[in-house]
């Protein structure tokens, strides 16, 4: 066998091997999810979407571009009262209630938690279940079926080339959609220039060495502490994730005239449950069923020794 023949065979074997890997990757639903997360942050895009929740059908427009200050994202309601989110770099401005409430600020750096974001395959059965067409884009359809009744299920439509999210449907345990989101038109543009950094943005926070003073003993399996945002004195904000769903746990000193002792709220798949505990307000926010949020909130306790 000549050297050139041997080299050609080696090259062919390598080509077949990488091609095989590519095919497996193309059908690997976990890889699709990671590509989706990357596409949502990496691409410039502009589109109109429909959001269905709680018996309401709303339209929104989203525009994401990269500027000298970093990524700029604008999400605007097209129905009902004017509501808008504008993020540029670390700065954020939210206009709600037709302009009667405006909240703004620079999002502070968030210290990482005890764990990186877990893979969704641990808690969900992931599968590519077919192909479809959304907003004129060919798409792969990915199902994420929860392995228990503590969390929602998902069906995601992902652009066949970029894996950009084109649509999503969140299901309760009975299979009834809790919310649906679908682009009706979407233009994508890959960003070639490296993203600029916002000179006004604070440096990323160092890994936290603080041990949370509070914990929730009834977290669904697979939820890990992934972030500890800074809080005011005496308060704590802990963020958990199972890879697809996330929840925030707030523990804040009670003040007279503030939140009612016990409350629940819901907007699509996101829920909020709160109650009073030993002079504190315990608030749980997350895209989980209300019964799960309630159980989590009821299990909050101070870490012994803190």
């Amino acid at each position, binding site marked *: 066998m000549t050297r050139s023949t041997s080299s050609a065979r080696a090259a062919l074997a390598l080509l077949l091997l990488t091609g095989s890997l590519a095919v497996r990757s193309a059908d690997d639903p976990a890889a699709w999810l990671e590509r989706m997360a990357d596409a949502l942050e990496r691409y410039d895009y502009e589109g109109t979407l429909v959001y269905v929740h709680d018996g309401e059908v709303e339209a929104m427009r989203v525009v994401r571009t990269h500027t000298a200050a970093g990524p700029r994202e604008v999400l605007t309601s097209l129905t009902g009262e004017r509501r808008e989110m504008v993020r540029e770099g670390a700065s954020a401005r939210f206009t709600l209630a037709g302009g009667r409430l405006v*909240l703004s600020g620079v999002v502070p750096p968030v210290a990482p938690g005890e764990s990186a*974001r877990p893979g969704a395959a641990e808690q969900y059965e992931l599968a590519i279940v077919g192909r479809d067409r959304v907003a004129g884009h060919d798409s792969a359809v990915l199902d994420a079926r929860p392995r228990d009744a503590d969390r929602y299920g998902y069906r995601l439509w992902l652009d066949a080339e970029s894996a950009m999210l084109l649509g999503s449907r969140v299901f309760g345990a*009975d299979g009834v959609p809790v919310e649906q989101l679908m682009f009706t038109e979407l233009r994508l543009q890959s960003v070639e220039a490296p993203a600029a950094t916002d000179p006004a943005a604070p440096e990323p926070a160092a890994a936290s060495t603080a041990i949370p003073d509070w914990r929730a003993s009834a977290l669904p399996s697979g939820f890990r502490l992934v*972030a500890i*945002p800074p809080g*005011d004195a005496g308060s704590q904000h802990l963020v958990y994730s199972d890879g697809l769903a996330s929840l925030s746990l707030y523990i804040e000193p009670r003040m007279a*005239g503030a939140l009612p002792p016990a409350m*629940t*709220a819901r907007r699509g798949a996101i829920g909020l449950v709160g109650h009073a505990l030993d002079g504190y307000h315990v608030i749980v926010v997350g895209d989980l069923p209300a019964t799960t949020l309630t159980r989590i909130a009821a299990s909050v306790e101070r870490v012994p020794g803190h």
Partner: protein
Amino acid sequence: MNESNPSLEGLSALADGELSRDELRFVLRTAAGDAQMRARWQRWHVARAALNRRGELPLAAGFADAVMRELASDPAQSRRPAWLRTAGGLAFAAGVAALALTIVAPREDAPDAVPTLARTTVLRAEDLSARLPTQPASGRELLSSPVVPIPIDPQVESYLLRHAAVPATSARTGFLPYVHVVASPTAADPRRAAKADAARQ
């Protein structure tokens, strides 16, 4: 069982446009001398505006001053984190949707005039929720029952914002967490959602 209340019945008929000209004149003259009746009418009027999803409720001179006084006495103003503050425009007292309105009693020399807005009062969240319909709770009924907008609570909104602002906590990142913030608040009876979830599970 509730006792018959002629004042309430008159107001109710006025709200429904069911009064004759003479009856209207009588109700308006009664309201002119009855502060409690006028206060109730004011609250019904605003509740109706909210239920009809009007984008703007009537405002009056001194509105901003009234709200700022409310904020100054609001101990929960400091609950929002330091980086998230109300910016410009108007602000709500945390935990209570307090709106300053002006409502006038009808003038005696214009008995046929429809009541317009004149005097300052303060509306609380419970005034808006007093007549919101409740529905039996089940998953499918939740989706088919009428949806009533809930008052904006800045504290609740700030919890949703802070949750959405934590980056990359799940694969559903980018603008997705903010869809819930920009979406219109609905489901006036939030406990209904909890019961629906229980019915599903």
